[in-house]
């Protein structure tokens, strides 16, 4: 109970500091909007395979813009000794990881909402015909990307040297998420929600579970004292 | 036939490059050992390191 409350306060602290300083979210959302806009402008010309292109474009836009937020989540703690203060709390590093994961999931969720809405408006795709399926798919994809991104961010952002490497390190690892999520998005766009769709959703779910678990197990060995 | 030869030559070349780089590093290490007045055997470095 005690730890859950502490976790809640870490999440709250991050959200409040983001609200006051506006360091990552506006940049992330702007990048998402601009990338989606530029992609959509070219999409009319594609013709038949439009939904295929659109799906991969949505997820790449989410990934690259989301990296701005993932990068910040631990890097923000490194300035002015915040990290040392956080480590002085009598809680296990797992809770810090879970709190950071929650913040990142929220950030990516907002980003996803914006990008999906923009795609519906600009490209006229029937994503809203299956709102629950889209929500499930977005949530699972979000969890997969955030779990890996947060875990790598915890090691990567402890100095300035390696921070730019995060996107480059995360992308090969989350290839299954990008592939599965964009295939599932394509199927939703085409309106065919059947066994194939559920198979991709299953893969996304397995990925999310495996990597959140890996994060919980490994974070203790990654955080330096 | 050409493809076959090209494939084997490229592979041999790549492996040879790696080995050359390794032996270059080895020479450098031996030089550094000499500068530290160590006998030219890596076992000595290991013992003193332990």
């Amino acid at each position, binding site marked *: 109970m005690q730890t859950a409350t502490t976790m809640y306060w870490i999440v709250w602290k991050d959200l409040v500091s983001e609200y006051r300083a506006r360091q990552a979210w506006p940049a992330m959302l702007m990048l998402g909007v601009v990338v989606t806009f530029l992609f959509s402008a070219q999409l009319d010309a594609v013709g038949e395979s439009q939904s295929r292109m659109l799906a991969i474009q949505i997820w790449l836009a989410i990934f690259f813009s989301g990296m701005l937020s993932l990068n910040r989540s631990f890097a923000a703690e490194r300035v002015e000794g915040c990290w040392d203060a956080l480590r002085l709390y009598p809680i296990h590093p797992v809770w810090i990881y879970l709190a950071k994961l929650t913040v990142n999931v929220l950030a990516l969720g907002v980003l996803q909402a914006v990008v999906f809405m923009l795609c519906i408006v600009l490209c006229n795709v029937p994503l809203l015909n299956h709102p629950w399926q889209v929500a499930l798919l977005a949530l699972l994809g979000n969890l997969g990307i955030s779990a*890996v991104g947060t*875990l*790598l961010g915890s*090691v*990567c952002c*402890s*100095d300035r*040297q*390696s921070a730019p*490497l995060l996107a*480059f*390190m995360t*992308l*090969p*690892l989350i*290839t*299954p998420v990008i*592939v*599965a999520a964009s*295939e599932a998005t394509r199927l939703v766009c085409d309106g065919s929600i059947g066994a194939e769709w559920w*198979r*991709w959703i299953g*893969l996304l779910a*397995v*990925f999310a579970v*495996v*990597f959140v678990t*890996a994060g919980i197990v*490994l974070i203790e*060995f*990654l955080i*330096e004292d | *036939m050409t*493809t*076959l030869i*090209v*494939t*084997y030559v490229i*592979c041999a070349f*790549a*492996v040879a490059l*790696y*080995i050359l780089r*390794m032996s270059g*590093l*080895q020479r450098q*290490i*031996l030089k*550094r*050992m000499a500068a*530290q007045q*160590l006998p*030219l*055997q*890596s*076992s000595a*470095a*290991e013992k*003193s*390191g332990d």
Partner: protein
Amino acid sequence: MNQHTKSHSHFRPIYVGTACVMTAALVMALYFAPTEETMGHVQRILYLHVSVAWIGLLGFAVMGAAAMAYLFRRDLDWDCWSQAANEVGWLCCSLTLLTGSLWAHSAWGTWWTWDPRLTTMFILWALCSCCLVVRGSIEHPHHKARLAGIIAVLGLIDLPLVVMATRWFRGVHPVSPEMEPTMRITLLLNVVAFTIFFTVLFLRRRSQLLSERLLHSLEIQTLKIREMEILT
């Protein structure tokens, strides 16, 4: 451990033995193995391709295991294992992609297809490259080892999922075709010979990394002592 405690002679039995086995394997692959009917001589790429692909996978597994040992123990010796496996694995993954591409060009008339195995190998290569780049760009040894290590461990966990994801796409890669006994023996000999060769290379590189690290700490100590002497 016993590899690098002996002297640095270039004519130790292990090297001579490796050279003999490698020569035998190459002669078998290029000369004695029967020429395949449909593809002709190009089919002989197979012996090389399968062997380096196997070493690439093995290298990746060793890298992941050593990285995990490092993360649990925080002992830089394990990182030397991991880095050596990383370098050899990267070399073999690259060669696999290259030989596979040359094979595909003759067999299927295209340099690359989005076959599950090809895609998986590509992602493996990307992960190996990623670790190498990380190692190249960070100076602090523990920090470097930690970051490269976590990528290796996550990559190892990731691999089955990558295989699954790519398998549900599409496929042309031959799984294990029928082979003549001579061809089978040649392939086996090649795999064994390459495994020995790259293991020797790997152990050599590992001991080199180890002595480099110890030498580095020794040099720093010497510098500190000199500094003290100057001050006093």
